[in-house]
């Protein structure tokens, strides 16, 4: 990179997600403890940490995906997205999820055609016009760098695609409802290096239009992709800061131990 990037300030200047003293529990087991952080608009924020540290749980709090699991509760704290407390009673979860898209660890296209997969998000909103669907499908597939590969077989089953293609299709499907924020839960963990590179490239490209929060196990990936990195351990946020700082000069010895590969 030729251009000189200005050093990133320790806290995001334009936070889109604000988390304050957030606690989360599965039944009587508390999973997240007193987390406070800000996530910047149109930045890539990586959540890292060893297995079971609560980073995925945390990610799924942003679009209230945890609502699907019985017996979950939030003892205290709040999450604000664009200034709105998303756990407020008045918040429409359906509307929230349209704003906060999600891509899962395992690629999960529906057992439908490629076209129908992307159009799904629009159709459930009641959009039926063919021309509108067509243009959105093309736009999203282009956005997910998939158009050239699949434009001739849009009506074929999405399950016939390769793993990497399926994952990019899932990203395209998430783009179709025009979210502001995209949550990614280890999107590359099931992909081979070539497919991973393509997805990473795609994420890099999406950064200018979307706020991305990505959970990853892959330290290099976090270093490559993200602007900021948060390190979680046993349900607690240990350290949060510009990616460079977390990887080069972490303040907390646990962070240092983790990023240098001594545990995890």
């Amino acid at each position, binding site marked *: 990179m030729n251009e000189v990037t200005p050093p990133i300030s320790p806290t995001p200047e334009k936070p889109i997600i604000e988390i304050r003293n957030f606690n989360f529990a599965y039944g009587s087991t508390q999973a997240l403890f007193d987390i406070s952080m800000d996530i910047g608009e149109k930045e890539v924020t990586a959540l890292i940490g060893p297995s079971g540290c609560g980073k995925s749980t945390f990610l799924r709090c942003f*679009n209230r*995906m945890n609502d*699907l699991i*019985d017996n979950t509760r939030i003892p205290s704290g709040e999450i604000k997205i664009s200034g709105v407390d998303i756990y407020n009673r008045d918040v429409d979860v*359906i*509307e929230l*999820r*349209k704003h906060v*898209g*999600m891509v*899962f660890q*395992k690629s*999960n*296209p*529906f*057992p*439908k055609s490629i076209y129908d997969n992307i159009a*799904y*998000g629009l*159709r*459930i*909103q009641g959009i039926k016009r063919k021309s509108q669907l067509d243009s959105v499908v093309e736009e999203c597939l282009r956005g997910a760098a998939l158009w050239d590969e699949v434009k001739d077989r849009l009506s074929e089953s999405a*399950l016939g695609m390769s793993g990497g293609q399926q994952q990019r299709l*899932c990203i395209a*499907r*998430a783009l*179709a*409802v025009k979210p502001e924020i995209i949550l990614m839960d280890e999107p590359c963990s099931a992909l081979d290096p070539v497919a991973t590179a393509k997805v990473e490239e795609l994420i890099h490209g999406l950064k200018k239009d979307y706020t991305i929060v990505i959970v990853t196990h892959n330290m290099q990936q976090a270093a490559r992709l993200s602007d900021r990195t948060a390190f979680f351990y046993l349900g607690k946020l240990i350290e949060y800061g510009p990616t460079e700082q977390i990887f080069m000069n972490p303040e907390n010895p646990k962070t240092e131990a983790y990023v240098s590969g001594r545990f995890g």
Partner: protein
Amino acid sequence: MSEDLQASEQSGVRFTRRKNVLFGKDRDSIIKGFFGSSATVAIVVLGLITIFLFKEGAGFLGSYHKSLQEYRLSGLEYVDILKEPRDDFSALNRYLTDIRAEWIQSLKAQGLTKKEMSAIVTAPEAKALFLRYLRTGSQLRGFIKKKMDAAIEVRDRFITNENLRETVNNYTAEIEAVSQTDYDPEAEERSRHALRLKQYLRENTLPEAVSQRTTEVIAGLEGEAPFGEAARTLILKLLQEQSEETRRAIQPVDFNKSIAVITGDQASYATILTKMKADIHTLLDQADAIAFNNPALEKRVERFGELNEQFLASFPKHKAKLAVWDQNEAIPPWRALVAFLTGKDWVTASDQQDWYGLLPLLSGSLLISLIALLFAVPFGVGAAIYVNQIAGPLERNLIKPYVEFVSAIPSVVIGFFGVVVFGEAIRLLSQFEFMAWVPFFPLQERLNAFTAGGLLALMAIPTIFTLAEDAINNIPRHFKEASFAVGATRLQTTLRVIVPSALSGIISAIMLGFGRVIGETMVVLLCAGTRIKIPDFTDGLGVFFQPVHTMTGIIAQEMGEVVRGSVHYRALFMVGIVLFFVSLLINFGAQWVVKKYRRVGD
């Protein structure tokens, strides 16, 4: 080496030989053998059932073909053609009776007294129509009755002869056996001989010497004495005598000669028909004089006249049919199968001709299954979707075991419930005023296809529910999550992602529910009304409320009282074979659906 062994013993690591537990087998191979043999036994039993079913059913085609041939040779078929106008005439009579009843009703509605009514109804012109109409057919009925009796007599004599011939053959075989010099009867045969001789002694007055000798032989046969020459001679003589007597009883039947009695009298038959035509015309002309003062009734009477004209116009066609009938026309062997598969009547133990037609039973079975599935599919699949997708854990833990518990109720209990409660409730409900808008209410029959179908639905719901719930449960969770993540509601997710993905499983659940329903016996036997007749599909939805009989029901009902080896017995096995194929087809269909539409979940 011994040091090595010692070392290994000391360290506790040692490889021992496998221990034999039983008959030189170790535990693993015994377990393997147990499961292997279980599978083998299951397959062998299934094979035996199939073989037995086909063995017993196979003879049907031959016997039924023979019966159909006798039906034609004896002239019964001819008589059945003769009967056609009589049946039409009876239908016309019923129509006329209906008109009369309606007339009386309408008179009653006008507020006339009994006396006035009877004066109108028994007026000469009314009497002429309503009472004399039936009489116009009496000659025809008498003629047909005579012919029918003749045909039945011929057919029965023929069958008796066949039986007698078989008896003679048995005698011949026995004589053959007894005349062998090394004949040494078993205890059973000895007592049979003794019995026969005793009877002979009792029924005939014999000279003292013969009687004496016979008594001795009987004593010998009943004791341990060897089978001697005296016994042989006596028994042979007796057998020959009886055989001869049976042979004499056979009065040969010549179908070609006996048919003359039945097909003769063409001239008088023609006269009868002509006279009937004239009589009916006269009657109808007189009927114009009756004043009904009711447009609807007049219309019906007019229609009655038209129907009569149609009936009379069919005579020439009917005569032509009689003319081309040929007693000696051969019946091809496949006719028996066609007659079975497409037969519209199931008539047994009749003095005329027994018919074994599948259609009334098949249509009954299918009708009941249709009704059952009409209820069970929405309820079963709906409950499965609800329990899996919408219900909370508390509801789920309550509903699931309860629905599944229904399948534990014995079918006879459900059938009993159907007879005593459900059927009665439906009939009572149908009699309420506010239910009168349903076209076929009020119901006359408490037991009908609807009662049975409704209860079978109850039995099919657990099957469909459980299997459909499994199918929905097998849909990977991440489909659901993906749908929610793009902002779908619960309902949208269920209808657009979950159900389409689980469709193959749901369809196969429905197919297996269908299999359960069509194979169910007890409920249909108790609740379906057991009327062996093809349901009248022209009745629209009313067809659901007709009593029917089913394939399973008829087997259960009649198997107990048939003569082993008879046509009837074999016909029931044929029904069993059809049932077997239907079930097989359903199972294959279910498997095919699962294979064809299986989605790759992961």
